[in-house]
């Protein structure tokens, strides 16, 4: 469905942020395959597709690389993909979310609630344009 292999990318300052993790385990156990073993990126202030699973290769590039979902549907999935309730996905609102195990929706927080820690990375940017 998507081009092979799945590719994702972060800006260097995003990747160096203490909240951006490379996970090898989950709940004190080694990471199961379905959660992206052996190595998975976790970027908690972005939409889930940025948190690439089962990483086999990491490269440092001078130019912004093409990333899987952004390439396949650029109007729907931006490069930054920061959680932003004010920016709709073209086909649905992203103002409210339903957490796993909860049936009711709750309001979605900017940067998934990590605004205090990460908003500074995007100072001066128009996040409605760079979604």
């Amino acid at each position, binding site marked *: 469905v998507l081009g092979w292999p799945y590719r994702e990318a972060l800006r260097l300052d995003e990747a160096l942020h203490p909240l951006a993790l490379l996970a090898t385990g989950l709940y004190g156990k080694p990471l199961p395959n379905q959660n992206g073993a052996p190595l998975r990126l976790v970027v908690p202030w972005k939409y889930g597709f940025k948190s690439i699973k089962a990483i086999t290769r990491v490269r440092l590039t001078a130019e912004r690389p093409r990333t899987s979902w952004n390439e396949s549907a650029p109007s729907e999935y931006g490069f930054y993909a920061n959680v932003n309730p004010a920016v709709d996905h073209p086909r649905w*609102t992203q103002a409210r979310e*339903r957490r796993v195990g909860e049936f009711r929706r709750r309001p979605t927080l900017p940067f998934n609630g990590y605004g205090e820690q990460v908003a500074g990375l995007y100072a001066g940017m128009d996040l409605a344009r760079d979604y």
Partner: protein
Amino acid sequence: MRGAARALGPALFLFGALPFAVLAVQLFLVYTGRRPDLLGAEPVEALEHATGQLALRFVAFTLAVTPLRRIFGWNALARHRRMLGLFAFFYATVHLVVYAALDLELQLGEVAAEIVKRPYITVGTLSWLALVPLAVTSTRGWVRRLSGGRWLRLHRLTYAVAVGGTVHFWWSVKKDVTEPLVYTIVFAVLLGYRWLTRRSRAGAPGVAAG
């Protein structure tokens, strides 16, 4: 053979009602937290997909009755076409209710905004609206009142519903278009059959059956 013909109605009713019963039980178990995993990580989305597909399938079953009668002579189906069509309306309505009540939690302003803003929601809503007069005029009384071919002409709206529902499905898909493609092919066959046989039917009013 007579017994089989008599069992056809109840069998088709079960065939139509059973998926709803299963979904209702699943929703109950998820909602009450007894089996929170039963409908996957996105239970509401799972219900939307299931009910939307059921609606499309029953539109297809309804449209399959006429070709099956003509080609295989399965005329016993004719008496049950209304039920198949009403199941299509039923599942389309459940689909819409799940969307408005469970997905958008009855924030009616939001529902209205989404219907206007998102083309696939607009098309889906229009398709459901087109089903309403068909369901209303499905009774014997209305069939009689709309005599002289008017009932048949009105119920050709089903073709528009088939197209609209399929477009709604295509536009709602993220990337994998296999399933909408399957429905497109099925509807193309069912509508294409009518188009190809329209001339031979024009001279034979006895078999006019939409």
